[in-house]
């Protein structure tokens, strides 16, 4: 059972990373255009080289 003292903080920490990522995504308007984002991955515009 002693493993718990180790595992619980680890799991909380990992979930915390997810939460921080979620905050970042909302702050940076990642959810403003879900439909457009879904379509944009199909575009071939910058397949050869990154957008300058």
């Amino acid at each position, binding site marked *: 059972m002693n493993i718990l003292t180790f595992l619980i903080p680890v799991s909380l920490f990992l979930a915390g990373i997810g939460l921080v990522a979620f905050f970042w995504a909302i702050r940076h308007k990642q959810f403003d255009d879900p*439909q457009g984002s879904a379509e944009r991955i199909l575009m071939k515009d910058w397949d050869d080289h990154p957008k300058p």
Partner: protein
Amino acid sequence: MAIAERIDAPVESVQVSACPACVAAPAAEALARAGAEKDARLMFSLPAAHCAACISTVEQAVQKVPGVRSARLNLTQKRLSVDADPGVTAAELIGVMGGVGYEAHELDPGLLSVTETDRQGRDLLMRLGVAFFSMMNVMLLSVAVWSGAESATRDLFHWISAAIALPTVVFSGQPFFKSAWASLKAGRLGMDVPISLALILASSISLFETAHSGHHAYFDAAVMLCFFLLLGRYLDHRTRAVARSAAEELAALEVPRATVLKDGAEVVMSISEIAPGDVVRVRPGGRMPVDGVVIEGASEVDRSLLTGESLPVWAGEGTVVSAGEVNLTGPLLLRVTAAGRDSSLHRMADLVAVAEHARTRYTSIADKAARLYSPLVHILSFSAFGFWMWKTGGDLRYAVNISAAVLIITCPCALGLAVPAVVTSASGRLFRKGLLIKHGTALERLADVDTVVFDKTGTLTMGAPELTNLGEHPRQAQEVAAALAAASSHPLALSLVEAARAAGVQPAVVEDLREVPGYGVEGRWRGTRVRLGRADWCGGESLAVTATYLCTGEGAPRAFTFADRLRPGAAEVVAGLKAQGLRILLVSGDSAGAVASFAGRLGLDEWIAGALPAEKAAKVAELTAEGARVLMVGDGLNDTAALAGAHVSISPATALDAARVASDMVLLGQDMGPVADAVRIGRQAVRRMRENLVISGVYNVVAVPLALVGMATPLAAALAMSLSSITVSLNALRLK
């Protein structure tokens, strides 16, 4: 009108000249003078954008325009935002997008700024995310407790749960606490009061139990409550935000400006600044911004939006015109008699405001359920508390535990989701069909409808004429008429040219073409003078139907007759609504002949012609008094009062502002077909809402007795809560 709307530009002070092309330069100069070399932010609506190819085509085309810094298309909102140098005009970009095949409308970014940064929505989403995070973690620990963790381990898990759950409840529960506090201050018992009470009680009791190494802690229930309720709240908010932003988009399409003559110079002014006595210029194709009298020029005006008449009316010096009419052929100078608040357009809008007020009295299913629910829950919880205090002889801890369990179990997770989930699903489906819901309870009201009243001109018809007798004329007459018509932008002429092109008629060679505003077009063909236009100008008798007349000097004038073009899907809508057993009426301001033949074409038995705006509203009121629930579909100013007075109303996107404001739903495309679907979906949606309320009720009926007798465990609460919430969400998705 090619006025580039800029957030930074001092719009009021910019003087704009008449020709669209000259607009950019002075505006840019004014900006430079002001020393505000800031970027222009332009917004466009692209109703046709729908795919990845659309995104790259539009963005690349716009980015190639010199001066454009960046362009980004939001596919969800179908809006393009462009950052550009001040010199770039909206008209230029609209032309570019038209060139690659996308219809674009300029939007007023000032009006849109509120919805663009949907703060409230983002805020709710943030709280929802936090609640979800905590729910998952607390649930993980709770599963360990339920599966038999004992003594010190259980206490440790409870403490960790508390560390996660308490901050979450404080943060994520705020929307409920705030609204509960507001409703308590107002002396009401809203749905948020029992929710807040349950959240606070569950958290504090669990904390107390944890501190005393109790067996049961409800931390998981508290965060789960937060999550499901926030989900319902978020769905509800999103539906409303989408409707509001779309309604704003429609309002932003029409920029309320007029060209005023001041000391010989043309000044573009906002309509609110125009005073009676000013002289206003209205170009062909423009809409009258004010009520006034014509003092110079001759033209024809289209009054269909105000009166429903499909025939254009001649206007010359001394003719009285009202705001909202469309000037067709020649430029007109008007002396303003009434502007802004006093204009007929605004008086109509005031009428609408009165009717709107009456409509807000409608209580939605969700409200009814909430009204029933709040007192019931409080009574149950308090009586449980009282009973166990008496039964255990004053064991406060046990009694409070039981009453908290009752509150948690009855908490309206499913109730909070039952209606928003259905509304989201239904409005999403209708939006894809091209129908936008502006009002929250519109779906429910739509389900009650048993009578449909249609307006004719502009609603069941396109308000655009269609040539009916091209084939009856000799080939030569067709060719001459096509050549003459090509010189005019009058709707009848445009339709004639289109019909001639479709029939493969080559226009004859006609010289000296000249349009005589208010009368028609004349020219020289093989040495003789030929005319196409009004009957009296041609020297002939005018027919009872819409027609334009061709005289070539030989024989009687030839009449090209027109009928109003049927809106696509109009016949299907009538058939579809009839099949659903609804009574259909056609009420039009047009002449009896036109309405009768039109009703015959669609197979409508009940029709009223020549109805004045007040008569339309009276007819709707009369039907309502007879006990009918009326759906009004109309587009004109003459329909506005009827739209506002009806149980529920729909208007097409081409309708006047006032009509769109008065209606509950707006038809975005040209097709009328979605109206029949809307009634069907509305009925289905209400059925689903009722089912959902019953489902959440059934869960309570099973779980509440358990809680009352003290048998409810945190596990039972978690199961009841999540199962009922998932069931109602799935049921909402069944909507077809």
